[in-house]
């Protein structure tokens, strides 16, 4: 069932989203309405479940008025570039990595996409969504009202899941089971984000801005963390607010967050450097402290992880994904 409002608006008939995005999944590429400003790749793992990956062409920005004729609930994540829009007077401007849930059949949007825009969208019919999430359904909002537009906070897990799903869409021919799994994982992290939304409300916007600055400063140099007192002073929060805010907003304490990023970085560095070099680069003077911390996060010692990554680098790509995936 498509919404077929075709009344001219302000003297201009807006483009239908199904024309532009292939949102009704019949078109593998956008029609003439897309004007070649971006490329769309669409897959339909199951009836009622469509995944779209949209990439700007790197040259042209796209500014267009749209009439949404999709009856899907959209779960999306901006992976790169900028997208801005307005619907019902509400400004929409996701940050990269931020989740977005939208259901707005028949609504008019004005949108703008930058040339380097990259965007992943999971579209589910309300029936399919109900089948997948059961009672959780109402947590996204009141679908009976016919309009849902909301952001879910950015999280590294949402971005990871979105990136994996985007890869599955791009490399078509991937296992249908893995594609389906990636869809469920992406959807799962969206719902997790909704959990954090309630907590996040307890942190006022002004504090969130300061907490984000604190996070940036904290992760600036992964070999030397600032003290909590320094960090608090630099962003103008007291230490208690800083510590509590980190837990509410990022789901972990200041040093846990630092340590997590430090170990993620360690894992990357181990591709190119040995264990001692990696430890030193990350500010460890004691290798066994580094090894213990690494094992605490990944369950393997850095030496073992390095061995695995070296194998996966030398293997053909279709084998390596299996090997590195187990590390």
């Amino acid at each position: 069932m498509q919404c077929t409002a075709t009344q001219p608006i302000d003297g201009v008939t807006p483009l239908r989203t199904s024309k532009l995005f292939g949102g009704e999944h019949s078109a593998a590429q956008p029609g003439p309405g897309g004007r070649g400003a971006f490329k769309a790749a669409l897959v339909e793992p199951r009836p009622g479940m469509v995944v779209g990956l949209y990439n700007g062409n790197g040259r042209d920005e796209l500014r267009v008025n749209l009439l949404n004729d999709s009856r899907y609930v959209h779960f999306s994540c901006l992976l790169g570039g900028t997208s801005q829009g307005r619907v019902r007077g509400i400004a929409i401007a996701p940050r990269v990595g931020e989740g977005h849930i939208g259901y707005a059949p028949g609504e008019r949007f004005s949108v703008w996409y930058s040339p380097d825009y990259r965007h992943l969208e999971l579209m589910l019919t309300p029936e399919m969504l109900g089948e997948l999430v059961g009672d959780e359904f109402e947590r996204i909002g009141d679908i009976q009202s016919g309009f849902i537009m909301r952001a879910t906070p950015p999280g590294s897990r949402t971005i990871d899941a979105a990136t994996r799903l985007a890869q599955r869409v791009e490399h078509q021919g991937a296992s249908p089971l893995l594609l389906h799994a990636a869809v469920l994982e992406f959807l799962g992290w969206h719902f997790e984000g909704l959990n954090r939304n309630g907590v996040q409300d307890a942190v006022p916007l002004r504090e969130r801005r300061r907490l984000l600055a604190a996070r940036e400063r904290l992760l600036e140099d992964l070999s030397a963390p600032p003290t909590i007192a320094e960090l608090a002073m630099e962003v103008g929060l007291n230490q208690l607010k800083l510590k509590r805010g980190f837990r509410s907003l990022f789901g972990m304490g200041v040093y846990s967050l630092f340590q997590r990023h430090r170990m993620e970085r360690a894992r990357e560095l181990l591709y190119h450097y040995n264990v001692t070099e990696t430890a030193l680069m990350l500010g460890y003077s004691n290798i066994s402290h580094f090894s213990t911390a690494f094992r605490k996060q990944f369950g393997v010692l850095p030496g073992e992880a390095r061995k695995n990554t070296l194998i996966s680098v030398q293997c053909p790509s279709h084998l390596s994904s299996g090997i590195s995936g187990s590390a």
Partner: protein
Amino acid sequence: MATARSADLAGFAPTLLSADEFDRSRQFRVAADRDRFFAAHALKRRLLGVLLGVPGAQLRFERQWAGKPQLVGRELHFNLSHSGDWVVLAISRSAPVGVDIEQGDSALPEGMLSLALHPDDRLAREPDSLVDRFYTAWTLKEAVSKGVGIGLALPFTQLRLEPSAPTQYRCRHGDELWHAEHRKLEGGAHLAVACLSPWTRLRLLRIERGI
């Protein structure tokens, strides 16, 4: 625009708040935070109720895409801010509005300077100190950003302040031109309001003892 000290609003009946707001107020562990939250939401319901001619407790609110609250089914724009024991509510009949108050008594947060200023920011009157300069720019941009309603997606470094009168500013966001005004209150607090349509008269209401 109405400003108040939270202690002056403590006399409102708790039943003025919705069950959800009341529950949220109980989540604050520090009494001062709880009182300020209560004061802000009581002020919001009381004043909006008076303007709309309905009991404040009956008003219903919903959240926009990125969390900005709005009234359900009514064409009245508002925005709340609080800092220290200050509470401020801005209301506009014509267009989206944003407001920010900063007590501004803390030391200058050095780490935030580079995040708050645009290289071409111009202030109407050069403030007395760097701290004042920071909080002037900060509150003005926070007011615009809250008005737009996209929260942290709007980096302050991309907002350029352009003075249009002794306390007034213009600030462009995409295709939109926001109008803003900055005031310094007694005790040194910085207050800024921003609205998508220019105003002929800005009424500043100071609430001293209940309403």
